[in-house]
């Protein structure tokens, strides 16, 4: 047994908060011991004094990092390198911040989709179970991880979106795929393009995840400077000093917006319907091989303009092909 003798009588672990039995006001009714699940969008504090993501802040906070969150880049979803037709391993982190002491057996389900903003009919990738013990202190990081393997068909594009949810019969995920608004859902894009060609054309779908016809507004813009800086750091790159010019075209290559720094488009979509668009992207200068920039495509529900219902990120990296 190794015992630090100098630590005897000098232990300085965090002070315990006393919760007294409260002789005058007991509450002897059963407490809530059901799970409270989420796929965390921030697994450690974003800034001093910040609790980890336990799923309470939904819709996900927008705005510059570190207080804002990139909804299409959930760090709770990790993968091995993706190549269509080859085995892909996906790991999803789950946090159960429920009360009591019970461990929940949560089911984690993963889907993939072609680049889509909003998810109508994603394709099934895999599902598994994970024992998620309660982690009640939001200041203490922690999660359980579920890993599964599968093969995305060789016909799939080089860039896809992964979508995952965690569910339990006493804490169910919403059947609408909603990474921004439902703590059970999360999204991670595997979309990265290089500046080898110009303009860069990125096809994607806008999809209605709801059971009813809805009006939406599609907004496309580059990440703001501070968010790009923090995002690039996370990706081990440097932020590029470029001004992207953006234009949306429809499935028949007809321009739907002017070329601008922020494109907006209003559209109506039937229940679970999707429509193809392409983003044409011009950069005013080349990115160095160690630089990146990122474009965010966000779908807003028109009846609630501040409520994003889907998002998509496009990372543009400098061309690092060997000469």
């Amino acid at each position, binding site marked *: 047994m190794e015992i630090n003798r100098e630590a005897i009588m000098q*232990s300085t672990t965090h002070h315990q908060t006393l*919760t007294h039995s409260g002789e005058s006001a007991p509450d002897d009714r059963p407490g*809530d011991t059901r799970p409270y699940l989420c796929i965390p969008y921030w697994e450690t504090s974003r800034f001093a004094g910040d609790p980890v993501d336990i799923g309470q802040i939904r819709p996900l906070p927008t705005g510059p990092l570190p207080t804002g969150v990139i909804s299409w880049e959930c760090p709770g979803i990790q993968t091995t390198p993706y190549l269509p037709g080859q085995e892909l391993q996906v790991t999803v982190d789950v946090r159960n911040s429920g009360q009591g002491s019970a461990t929940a057996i949560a089911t984690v389900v993963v889907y993939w989709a072609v680049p889509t903003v909003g998810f109508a009919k994603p394709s099934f990738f*895999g599902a598994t179970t994970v024992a998620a013990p309660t982690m009640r*202190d939001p200041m203490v990081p922690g999660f359980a991880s579920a890993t599964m393997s599968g093969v995305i068909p060789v016909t799939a594009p080089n860039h896809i979106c992964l979508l995952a949810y965690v569910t339990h019969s006493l804490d169910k995920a919403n059947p609408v795929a909603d990474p921004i608004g439902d703590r059970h859902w999360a999204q991670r894009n595997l979309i990265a393009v290089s500046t080898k060609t110009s303009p860069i054309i990125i096809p994607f779908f806008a999809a209605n995840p709801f059971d009813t016809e809805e009006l939406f507004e599609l907004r496309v813009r580059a990440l703001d400077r501070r968010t790009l800086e923090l995002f690039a750091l996370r990706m081990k790159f440097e932020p590029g000093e470029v001004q992207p010019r953006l234009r949306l075209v429809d499935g028949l290559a007809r321009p739907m917006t002017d070329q601008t720094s922020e494109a907006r488009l209003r559209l109506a979509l039937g229940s679970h319907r999707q429509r193809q668009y392409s983003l044409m992207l011009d950069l005013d200068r080349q990115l160095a091989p160690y630089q990146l920039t990122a474009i965010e495509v966000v779908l807003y529900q028109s009846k609630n303009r501040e409520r994003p219902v889907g998002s998509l990120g496009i990372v543009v990296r400098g061309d690092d092909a060997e000469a």
Partner: protein
Amino acid sequence: MIDYHAHTLALEEASKTLAAAPFTDAALLSARNEIQIDLSVANGHAMLGALVDHLFAHAVSDGSELALLNRAADLWDRGVALYNDLGSVRDRFESSLAAPGDPDALSQFNTAAFDVQLFAQKAYAMQAEVIGLRDDVSSLKYLTTHPRQLDEPANSWDWSSLLLGRRTDALVRNLSRLAHDSGTRAFAFGALASYGANAAGSAYLGAVVGGPRRSHRFRDRIARNTIGSWLSRKYLTTPSPGKIAKIVRFGGPNRAVLPSGVEQLLKDALKATFDLSRTPEPPNLQRGYRRMLRHLQLIDGFSRPPVPAPPQSVWLAKLYGDPSNPPPSLRPQDVGLSGDPGGGVSLGSNSSGNPAPSQSDNEKSSTICGIIVAILIIIDLIQAFVQCIVQWAKKQTCTFWDNMLLKKLWEKDPPDPRDQPPTTDVTASSSELTAMASNDQVTQLIACLFDIHMQIWEALDRAYHFLTFHGLIYPQSLINVPVYSQFTSVPATSQWPRRPVSDPVNRYHLYPGSPLEHPAAAPSGFPVGANPDAFVPLAASRFILPLWEQIARGETDTQNLDLDADRGFLHPCWATGKSINEDPVNVRTLDYGDQ
């Protein structure tokens, strides 16, 4: 009084401290040489000595706790076996229905269809036993009130309380004096380690509990077990309870026997230490020994099984392919907050946790009703399966099945436990199996069996917590949960000790908010935030080694310390002038010879 793990660690620490002591005195060097040889050849005796307080506790008990633990262990083993049976049934259903043309498919399906009914019968038969155990454990009657708290005079105290509260140092000295060979000397050294470990460890216990064992016996018990789990996790070489049982077991393969030398030593030492005309008859030590061994074996047997495997991949794609149409769950949707029936709480209003012990940790939140829920769902599911299999074989939709999925299970009367569900012949032919394989309701059956499997695992987990929360077993992996972690860090408090709380069964998960028991005392010298590893080396350096040196030198200027640290750290054995309920309590410190 500390737990098995802390005692074994203290013994190990005492041996190391003794070995490292820079003695120059020839008498000490000689004595150390002798005891080190004794410890190397009679390790089992030493560990038995370290557990002497537990030996007496088992000897004087009425056996009710061990009997409950026996029942719990039996139910646990059967519950895990049932859980494993369901895994096998699921696997056979899934394989045969996924590939009905395979040569083994038909026999797999038919054996699974029979076994799932047996599974339901076995689960059903356990219902009454589960409810009976829950009721018997919930009352916590096996944790009896300390005689001091009942104002009983010391001459009527049981021997377990007596050895912790009277002539404690004197007993250790007499054990050492009367030991005459390697086995008894090693036992006496273990008892010395036990003395020091209790003197230091009980002070820690009192600090985290909020008062002594006699005032907060339920809280003290889970604190004691939690500290043991904490220490065993930190020091990975700590033997498990089952390993401890093997180390301290003597006798033939069929009957464990407390070594006669040890038994005689204890009898002689009790006689030399106490006026036996003023005590109850010494207890049956052989009975206490065998109970302790059984207890150690039983508490080692509660391991949770691996979590259920998800359905085979072909079924997963069917069940989860469309996120807007998730598979059904048979879990009642109007469950209570703790997952038990009858709460009428709508789902979706779940609340996130709190790092401090709270309402969700109370006695009523720690029930084992999850098992009963799962059993009743199983009965319903298997009944529907038997009713529907004929229609599925004809490629028809079964309305009985849809009704089962739609109905609220708790709105009907539970079945009579005496009416065991029958077994029905549901043998299918190859063509019928093929017909069933493509039925959507069969896919739902696969989902429901998976759901039930998860519910049973969670019910086992809840049962584990239930037994832990009631002090019957160690919390082990649960020690980071607030209701347990409160006992592994000394809290900041200036007022100690707290009097017993009213309605302790419903409040022992919380630090006592009861009035101060005057005169106030300091629970321990441990700083705020100190973890349990603070008291183990303290026991060796502050108590065990100095007392060993005194015994080796023939010196006698120590006190009999209260081994429950009843009035705080380093407090000698004491008596109440009048009643323990007086305010302030008339604390009368006993002279060395007082009994």
